[in-house]
Structures are given as C-alpha cells and as structure tokens.
C-alpha cells in the first residue's frame, strides 16, 4: 500500500520536470533543388515557440522585399524553402541541416536564436553554404569568416551605443544593471558596462534574473531601489520585457529611476502589451518605425498596406537580408554558395534601407547608426520616438 501512496507524488514530480524541458515542434514544406540560373534560399525562422512573433515579422519583411522585386533577387528566380527554427538549437540545428542537405539550399537566411546560429556555423562552412543572419546577436557569431554575414546587430554593439549617453544623463550617479540570465543578457551588460565606464560612469550593482522561469522582478527591482543608483539599464525581450516594464512602473521604480536598455525592451507587440507603463523608457536600436526618412516612410506605407500592421526592427532585418542577397546576386558569377559568399564581400553600402545607410564591416556585422528612442504616446498609442543618433 505504501508504494501505491507514493506513486502520485512521484508521477507529479516527473511530470513537473518533464514539462520544464518542453520543446517546440517542427514543420516542413515542399523541397526542391536549385537549377543553374535560379537560386534556392533556405529561410529558417521560428514558426513555433516563444520567438514565433519575431518569425512572423521577419517572414513578412522577407516576403515584402521579394514581392517588391517580382520574386527575383539579382535578376534570378528565387525558390524559397522554409524550415521552423523552433525555440532552440534542438530544433533549429536539424532544421537548418535539412535545408542544406535535403533541399540543397544555396544560401541560408534567418536564425533568431544565437545558440542555434552558433550551432549551425561549422556545418554551413563545411558545406560551403553562406548564412545571412537576420537576427541572432551573439557578439562572436560573425568574425570575418567567409560564410557568416549579419544584417541585424551585435548584443554588445547596441549596448555600447548607450554607454556615453547614459553617462551624460546620470551625471555622477551610478547605474544599476539588470539582464536576463543567458548569453545575450551577459553580452549586453558587458558591452554597456565597458562603454559606460569608459565614459566615466559607475555601476551601483548588477542582477542577472533567471531566464524563462521568473516573471516576478520585484526582488530585483527592490535591490535596485535600495542601491544608490540614479538609473537602471536593463536587457529584456518578449514576454519578459512586458512583465519587467509593467512591474518597473507598479513598484514605483519609474518614479525616481529612469530606465535605459536595448530596443527589444519596447519593440513591436511587446510595446503594445506594455501600454502606457512604458512611457519614458529610453532605448537604443538601429531602427524605429517612427524614423522620419523618405526611405522609411515608403517602407512603412508598403508594409502597413500589405499586412495591416506596423513593421518592427525584426521585419527590417529580414527585409535587409533580402536586399543584401539581392545586391550580392547582382554581382555574383553564379549561384553556388561560394559564389554568393564571395559576392557578399563586394556589395558596398546599402543606401536606401529603411533603417538608414549601412554596410558590412570587416567582421561582416552591419556598420550602422544606432538611434536613441523614447517611448511617447503617439495618437493614443505608445511609440518609439527617435530622439537622436548615438555613437
């Protein structure tokens, strides 16, 4: 009888542990190999799991560019094979392997998760297939090696762009640093700390909050409030950013500690859910849909017309990945992976991107302008209003 009584508790504990490691599924579409004059692109973006909203935006950005160019890139017909990146490398790496082996993709575009991107890097290099990263921000992902190119950002780069500005804003008061406890959060804090301290700032303290298991930031916010900090720097994205900013407001930190962070803190659907709780939050980002340039206005209009939604930075990154591939195929000798990789090195500056002019630097990361944005109510809804340029 005793074993019978123990069984339910044991079963429940097992269920609890199994749930903790739940993963996403995968989804496949029709396959096909590239002919000689057409190019096969493997578009690997999340269609399930926590990054799905990013996947939706990025798919839209990519498709909008193709539509505007009659389905052609560099004058060649494009065949797109898609794969679900899922949440992490457990799904994303096999999905990427499948598009290069089974679907014979000539080039891979996408990848939201840095761990997935790092996981496919070697396999792509040995298959001689270039990767155009349209989101993943791990600092050492693109290092000048010939197969990896990036149209998004580096975690450290965005963070560093804020350093001088914050140091100037807080004067001689220290700043409290908070981030989600995973690689991107650590890189973000490291990048900010270096630039901030170089500009004469001091750090009051630092909290790395458990990633994916906590949605209550009160203990950490209270630590920041109890320190002698005059401002908070925070790295959060997605649902975590929604909870964090809302609690930053509810627990009164907003009253005396201005909040700075990379733009993911207030981007797209995240900002909608935060509502007026996000008012006054200042972020650094390489794009805002409110950026007032002719190129961006045209892009936003086309995007809104196509999808009845405002574009996000994620959409622009995928849009620009298509633009980069377009430019490369224009100058490329052929459609092999090696040809495309070589051509990506010769594309020069992209002058009509919605984010403003940018080019690949020698490490193949985007050389671009970061903007300081502040959340203000625009026509009754919160928006990331551009305050000026950083760096």
């Amino acid at each position, binding site marked *: *009888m005793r074993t*019978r*009584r*123990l*069984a*339910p*508790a044991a*079963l*429940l*504990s097992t*269920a*609890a*542990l199994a*749930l*903790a490691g*739940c993963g996403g599924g995968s989804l496949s579409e029709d396959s096909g190999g590239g002919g000689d004059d057409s190019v096969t692109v493997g578009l690997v973006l999340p269609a399930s*799991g*926590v990054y*799905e*909203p990013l996947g*939706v935006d990025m798919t839209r950005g990519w498709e909008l560019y193709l539509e505007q160019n009659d389905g052609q890139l560099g004058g060649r017909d494009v065949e797109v094979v898609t794969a679900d990146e899922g949440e992490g490398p457990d799904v994303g790496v096999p999905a990427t392997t499948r598009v290069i082996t089974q679907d014979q993709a000539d080039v891979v575009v996408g990848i939201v998760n840095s761990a997935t991107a790092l996981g496919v890097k070697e396999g792509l290099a040995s298959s001689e297939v270039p990767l155009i990263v349209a989101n993943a921000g791990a600092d050492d992902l693109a290092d000048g090696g010939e197969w990896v190119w990036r149209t998004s950002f580096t975690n450290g780069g965005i963070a560093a762009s804020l350093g001088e500005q914050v140091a100037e804003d807080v004067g001689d008061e220290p700043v409290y640093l908070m981030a989600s*406890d995973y690689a991107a959060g650590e890189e973000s804090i490291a990048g900010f700390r270096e630039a901030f301290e170089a500009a004469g700032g001091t750090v009051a303290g630092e*909290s*790395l*909050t*458990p*990633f994916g*298991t*906590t*949605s*209550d930031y*009160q*203990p*950490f916010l*209270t*630590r920041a*409030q*109890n320190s002698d900090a005059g401002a908070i720097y925070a790295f959060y994205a*997605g*649902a975590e950013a*929604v*909870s964090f900013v*809302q609690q930053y407001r*509810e*627990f*009164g930190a907003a*009253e005396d500690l201005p909040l700075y962070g990379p733009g993911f803190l207030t981007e*797209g*659907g*995240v900002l*909608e*859910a*935060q*509502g007026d709780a996000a008012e006054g939050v200042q972020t650094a980002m390489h794009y805002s849909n409110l950026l007032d340039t002719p190129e961006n206005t045209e892009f936003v209009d086309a995007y809104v017309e196509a999808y009845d939604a405002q574009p996000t930075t994620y959409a622009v990154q995928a849009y620009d990945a298509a633009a980069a591939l377009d430019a490369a195929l224009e100058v490329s000798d052929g459609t092999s992976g090696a040809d495309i990789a070589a051509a990506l090195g010769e594309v020069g500056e992209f002058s009509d991107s919605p984010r403003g002019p940018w080019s690949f630097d020698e490490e193949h990361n985007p050389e671009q302008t970061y903007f300081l944005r502040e959340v203000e109510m625009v026509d009754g809804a919160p928006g990331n209003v551009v305050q000026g340029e950083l760096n």
Partner: protein
Amino acid sequence: MGWLDANLISVLNGFALAALLFLIAVGLSLVFGTMDVLNLAHGSLSLIGAYLGVALVDEDASLGVFVLAALLAAAVGAALGAALAAMTSAINDHLRQALLTLGVALIAADVLRELFGSDPERVSAPAALAGSVDVLGRPYPVYRLSVVAVAVVIGLVLYVVLERTQAGAIVRATVADRGMVEAIGIRSQVVLLGVFGVGAALATLGGLLAGPVLGARPGLDSTVLLLALVVVVVGGLGSVRGALLGALLVGQVQTLGVSLLPGQASYLLFGAMALVLLLRPRGLLPSPYAHAGGHA
C-alpha cells in the same frame, strides 16, 4: 533599515504570488487527490481565464466589469471542468489520463494561439485597483493586495465547505471509499463532476485574476501548470491546507528566496521541491483521507 524594508516588501509580494498560485493549484490538488484524475490541461484552463480577461476587460474597466468577467470565467471553467470529468471518468490509469489531458492541453494551446495570436497580451487591472499604495514607504500595487484578500476568502469558503458541510462530507467519503458511498445511494460520478467543475472554475478564475500580474501569452499554460504541480507536490495531494501551505512556500521561495540568494535564483524552486520530497515524500500536508487502495 534598507535591508529590512526590502525583504518585507518581498515577503508581502510572496503572499500575493502565493494567493494566485493557491487559487490555481487547489483545483489541481482536489481533482487529483480526491478523484485520482491527473489533469494536465489544468494550465490551459488557467490560460483560458487569462485570455477571457484580455477579451472582456478593457483598459480602465470598472470594478463591476472585472467582477462580471471573473464570474463568467468561473462559469466557463466549470463547464470545461465538467467536460474534462466526462472525458476522464472512464479512464483509471494515470498514464492514459495524462496522455488524454495533455492532448487536450496541446489542442487548447493551438486554438488560443489561433484566436489571440502569439504576442504577449496584458490584462488590465480594474481602474479602482490600478494604482499603488505606500507600504513601508514603498509603492506597492493595490491590485496584488486585493488578490490576497480574494484568495483568503475563497480559501476559507473551500475549507468550511469541505470540512463542515454535508456536501464536503460526501466528497471526503468518496475519497476514502467510493464503493461504500455508492452503496448508500450516492452516485460517485456526480461527486466527480462537482469536484472537477469547482476545481476547473477556480483555475480559470485564478488565471483571470493572475492576468494583470502574469499577463497572457502562449506557453504561460505550461509555466502555470508547472508551478501548480510543484505547489501540489510540495503541499501534499488532495487537501486545501496542503495547497495553501505549498503555495505559500513556493511564493516565498520565488520572491524572498530570490531576493536573498539572487545568484541561485534559477535553482531555488526545484531545490525546495527536492528537499521537501526527500524529507516528506507525500508532501507537507497530504489529505488525511487519501485513499489507501484506489478505486473499489
């Protein structure tokens, strides 16, 4: 002084979190402990409650609208609970129950994603409770304080009904010996339906009340189910007091524990669960009526 202040706020916040966890987990505990049904769709019920909040409660909604939405959520939960009870009543072994309810949970997650999209959504607190009050010199959200009060009331009602009324006596008797209860002319199916309905109603109600704190998003169902399972495992199956104690412990571990040991924050929850299982394998306060031999 700062140290004390900080930790008192964390303790208070732990009570608010515990209140929400209690509301959600007590249904899981009752259904499993008394009816021997493992309902892995319990987190989905709670997420349905949260999304009802997204759909029904506008920003600056009045308290009346919020209460109506809460009652509606409870009614929807009761109906869904009855449906789950009907589905699971013929199945006796845990593995098949788990597979069935997990399947229901997966379908529910996809339907909710289809209806509400995959962006995280916020549920607004009613306008009357939206602000913050000063507690120990720090602003604290009024809404969280109200949640504690609501949970205390519901917990007391549950306790009195189970321990002091005839209906409660029948439930306890069904747990102890279903065959004997049927022999004196009570249909145990009806009891099962009732307990499942109430448990599910509390889950959807808890989900809606948790909306302004936890929000509503895909994946929240499994997060909530996970926390509820931990609460039930820690507290002991089938007892209201166990669920309460489990929720209080998990609430404090997640706030005070994290505040004191921020470096170990990721491991605290399961560390606490493992410790309890080592010392008290049946949980801290298991139901005194827990059946010894399963169903007759």
